[in-house]
């Protein structure tokens, strides 16, 4: 009995090891037609959970870029296909979806993230397989720091960038006593630490840091504590549905005047869900009414593609998704190949002009941390809107150089190119 077992075992494992060399799933028998073989992208976007709305908006921007290229005949003569699944704003699901996309669907690039925990989980799986991963909208400073990776590129401004833009003026202009409200996960923690560092560097003081579990709805005890503590400024690192709930309650209680509120970064889908409760000063990477060339055409194209969607105009989340995908496909064309190492090298030296970015300043990829350095905008609620989508009043725009995350390059250790498995599609 056992002899047969062993033989089958050895045969089985030998075959399995040979089989794993071709883990591209259904494509392995199409190698003859490699020329016309489509490029497959895996879009890991949340459709439910705290960031479900933002995840879907991300998806819209990514799809727009893909459609643009497919209309022109694809990339290097090959059509671009995509597949998407709900990562449920849950890291474990992100891990599972990434495995499925890579091993079963044969995706050679993964795109999409809003929640930093999910992004980290996906990064691990992608790095194991050498698959490039574009972190489109997760803005935890650690994404460019201790959680950076040779295969990952970050396309959003992070908590440090926004803090740097906002904090100095607020400490000097409004007051020195700050209170932090922090969502209890990676993005919240790292963003609040960045804010704390900025506040203290400018002579301010953090009087308390209240941790808010994810999916908190009832902010009553926090608002009571804030009223009792009487800070000059409250800086929040709260995202997704939670910030919507917080804003509702703050506005209901008319607490939006005093203390001053700084809401690090606000995503357009969260604002659109509850526009009346917009208050305080917040950061963003783009706005659909920026008075720059190209913005109006982009907005019109987006509107035409998303006529029946829940949100009428594109915001920063869609914009980041679009820009990331567009630059990836352009990098493939410049490299003349879809080999991951070649594309990574192209992306590492990326520079995009302000006009091409529809932002005020030129943007560039930091080769050490793999984060796109771009213009940071500060905005507040627009008291004189020109139409019902004109919710922001942009109060300042800052050059990427002045809001650099100085701590990140020290914390980021990229694996050398030789250690990254080679992936061709």
């Amino acid at each position, binding site marked *: *009995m056992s002899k047969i*077992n062993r033989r*089958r*075992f050895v045969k*089985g*494992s030998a*075959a*399995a*090891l040979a*089989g*794993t060399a071709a*883990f591209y*799933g259904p494509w392995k028998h199409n190698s003859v037609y490699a020329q016309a073989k489509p490029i497959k992208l895996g879009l890991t976007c949340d*459709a*439910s959970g705290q960031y479900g709305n933002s995840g879907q908006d991300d998806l819209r921007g990514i799809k727009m870029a893909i459609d643009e290229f497919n209309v022109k005949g694809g990339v290097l003569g090959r059509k671009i296909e995509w597949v998407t*699944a*709900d990562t449920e704003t*849950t*890291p*474990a699901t992100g*891990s*599972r979806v990434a*495995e*499925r996309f890579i*091993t*079963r669907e044969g995706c050679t690039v993964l795109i999409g993230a809003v929640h*930093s*925990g999910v992004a*980290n*989980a996906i990064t*691990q*799986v992608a790095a*194991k397989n050498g698959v490039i991963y574009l972190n489109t909208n997760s803005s935890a400073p650690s994404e460019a720091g201790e*959680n950076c990776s040779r295969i990952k590129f970050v396309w959003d401004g992070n908590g440090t960038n926004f803090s740097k833009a906002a904090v100095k003026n607020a400490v000097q202009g409004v007051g020195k006593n700050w209170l932090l409200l922090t969502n*209890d*996960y*990676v993005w919240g*923690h790292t963003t609040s630490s960045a804010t704390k560092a900025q506040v203290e560097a400018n002579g301010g003081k953090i009087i308390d840091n209240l941790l808010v*579990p*994810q999916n908190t709805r009832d902010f009553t005890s926090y608002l009571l504590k804030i009223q009792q503590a009487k800070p000059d400024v409250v800086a929040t690192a709260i995202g997704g549905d939670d910030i919507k709930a917080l804003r509702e309650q703050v506005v209901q209680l008319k607490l939006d005047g005093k203390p001053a509120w700084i809401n690090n970064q606000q995503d357009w889908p969260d604002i659109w869900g509850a526009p009346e409760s917009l208050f305080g000063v917040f950061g963003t990477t783009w706005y659909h009414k920026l008075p720059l060339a190209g913005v109006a055409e982009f907005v019109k194209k987006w509107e035409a593609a998303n006529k029946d969607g829940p949100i009428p105009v594109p915001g920063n989340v869609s914009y980041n998704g679009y820009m990331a995908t567009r630059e990836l496909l352009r990098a493939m064309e410049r490299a003349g190949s879809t080999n991951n190492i070649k594309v990574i090298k192209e992306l590492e030296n990326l520079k995009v002009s302000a006009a091409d970015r529809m932002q005020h300043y030129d943007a560039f990829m930091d080769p050490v941390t793999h984060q796109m350095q771009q213009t940071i905008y500060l905005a507040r609620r627009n008291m004189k809107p020109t139409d019902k989508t004109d919710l922001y009043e942009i109060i300042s725009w800052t050059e990427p150089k002045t809001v650099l995350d100085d701590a990140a390059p020290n914390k980021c250790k990229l694996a050398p190119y030789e250690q990254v498995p080679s992936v061709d599609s």
Partner: protein
Amino acid sequence: MNGTAPNSPDAARLITPTMLVVWLGLATIPLWISQIGLYPYLGIEILIWSIYALSFNLVLGTAGLPSFGHGVFFGVGAYAFGLAQFNVSSSLWICLTLAMLAAALAGVFVALFISHRRGIYYAFMTIAFGQIFWTIAIKWHSVTGGEDGLLKIERLPADLGFVSFDLKNNASFYYFVLAVFIVIVIALWRLTHSPYGRILSAIRQSETRAAHLGYRVWLYKASVFTISAGMSGLAGGLFAMAQLAAFPDVMSLHQSGYIVMMTLVGGGLVSFWGPIVGVVTFLVARDVIGAMTSAWMLWFGLLFIAIVLFKPEGIAGAFRSVVDGGKARAKRAEGVSALRLLFRS
């Protein structure tokens, strides 16, 4: 006790023919899993959750204890594996052992509070402890990484001294998990068919009677819970290696409920192999139907309700009644009585 009559020759064997068939079948999976539209990682998940479900069934099916918070031990094992890897040792065997021990320790702790209860109160307390551990896992950032999970866990090589296997790619890891699975199956089979297992069955049928026969019921309940917790922890450690991370979700009420659903649907109450059938059904349904619609749980939930109402013997039980020559009614009665015994006062 599950399925096999104590007098059947299988009960006395170390390795039964069914086991060999199952192992052979599982060993060939990596060869054909991609062909049928699935992928090797799913196979790994199925094996790991099967180990977890078999360990869980020790408590539910054999001992008749309704534990709705077993996800705790699975999760503790995963975290312990990661923490051991970071802080204690880079030996695979030591880390897995520590995972098992940590989960068993958690099991002893919970068992101390609940082993003198029965029925609904027992279930209540397991849910409460499940929530406590889940909340701690989410809050205790510095140790568990909170909601983001414990990341950068590695698949340590299986070093046997004279040869070392690298487990980084999914196929070789699959065979490692299969090896652990084989060991666990043998251990659980012997356990359920040993005198210890028979006493557990007796306790399941009537605690009062068992106590009157002189057995220290509390000790048996506590010990089986601990053993089950430890083995679930071992599965958890393997899962941490599979995902390269440990997340708190597995400890949530939903996921602890999933393992109950899987075990019941598969027929764990009447069959030793039932839990495996349930795991395969659940995970494949989640993958295949989940790709088509995000409402797959709707259908699985309805299936679960139907089984609870009409077929408590589960899939494996129904299969066995067909194989045993149509003794469907007897199998159903077995399933019904097993279900009833879970909550007898």
